[in-house]
């Protein structure tokens, strides 16, 4: 595994996605503030009877987008700070949730919806948070690539009930389980996942009986 290249590529994908979304947020704010200017200009001649309603709608949109922007930048800030410590105690589900909040656009572009199943007993493990995020991202990419032919897709992420593990599970497929296993094993991302897991003291397994990938913390 070319760690430096993979880490750079991972950072590139995440930041490109967030900054692209920020461009959209700014574009919406810019167009709505411009629209307010347009309305005020027209209203100078007293032509707009519903000016308050029109301006109110624009303000509401701008406010909503400002919050969206704050979520994105704080998400990105949190993400870059996960490089601060090589090993630390991490709430697994929380960290995945944060990663998905800033990368879901990448998968939405591919018509993939990602859900995180809340756990009754969330737990923390001591790991390298960056490695874990890379592995999580690769697991989703690997499933998305393996099932590309299915079209619209859904991936669930949940903690395992009987061991310290997290599972990335593809909701449904027309594939047979044996064919799915073959596809995963031959996917380039699977090699990266297993290699990263070896370095980080995790273990990657193909989910027994489901279209998923299991990451076990040793």
């Amino acid at each position: 595994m070319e760690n430096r290249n993979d880490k750079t590529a991972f950072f590139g994908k995440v930041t490109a996605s967030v900054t692209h979304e920020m461009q959209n947020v700014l574009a919406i704010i810019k167009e709505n503030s411009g629209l307010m200017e347009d309305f005020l200009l027209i209203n100078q001649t007293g032509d707009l009877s519903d000016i308050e309603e029109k301006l109110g709608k624009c303000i509401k949109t701008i406010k909503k987008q400002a919050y969206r922007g704050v979520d994105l930048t704080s998400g990105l800030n949190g993400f870059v700070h996960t490089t601060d410590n090589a090993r630390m105690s991490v709430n697994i589900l929380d960290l995945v949730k944060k990663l998905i909040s800033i990368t879901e656009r990448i998968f939405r572009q591919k018509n993939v919806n990602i859900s995180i199943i809340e756990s009754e007993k969330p737990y923390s493990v001591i790991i390298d948070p960056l490695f874990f995020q890379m592995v999580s991202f690769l697991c989703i990419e690997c499933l998305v690539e393996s099932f590309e032919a299915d079209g619209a897709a859904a991936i669930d992420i949940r903690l395992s009930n009987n061991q310290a593990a997290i599972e990335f599970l593809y909701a449904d497929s027309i594939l047979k389980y044996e064919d799915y296993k073959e596809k995963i094993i031959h996917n380039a991302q699977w090699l990266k996942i297993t290699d990263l897991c070896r370095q980080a003291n995790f273990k990657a397994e193909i989910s027994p009986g489901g279209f998923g990938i299991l990451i076990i913390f040793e």
Partner: protein
Amino acid sequence: MKIKVLLADDEKEFVNALAQRLELRDLSVTTVYSGEGAIEMAEKIDFGVIVLDVLMPEITGIDALKKIKKAKPNTPVIMLTGEATVENAIQGMKLGAFDFLMKPADTELLVGKITQAYTLKYEHEERIRQAEIENIINTRGW
């Protein structure tokens, strides 16, 4: 007569605000929120200019551009993008896009580009019509 513009972007709040601003500048705007919607609409209606976002889910703006150019080769397409890389712009221009603008684009600049693209389309169609008329006159010996 107002220029008919098709505006396609998956960010609904962006499309809706920009459409209103373009309408206030005397353009007739139809909005769609996907690449698929843009292709369908472009095949049905003869637009003066089409404005497409590059990154849309499922069918991207680049894929939509390819299909639109196949169905309506003379309709100018302006691409909008939030990506600061030149790769998509080069690809889009190779596929026949009229121009490429960074999002958020200056509204007056966009209106200028739309007007310029439509004028060129109109002049091109006028020249074709003129040539057809001359051809009829010549062949019939009028």
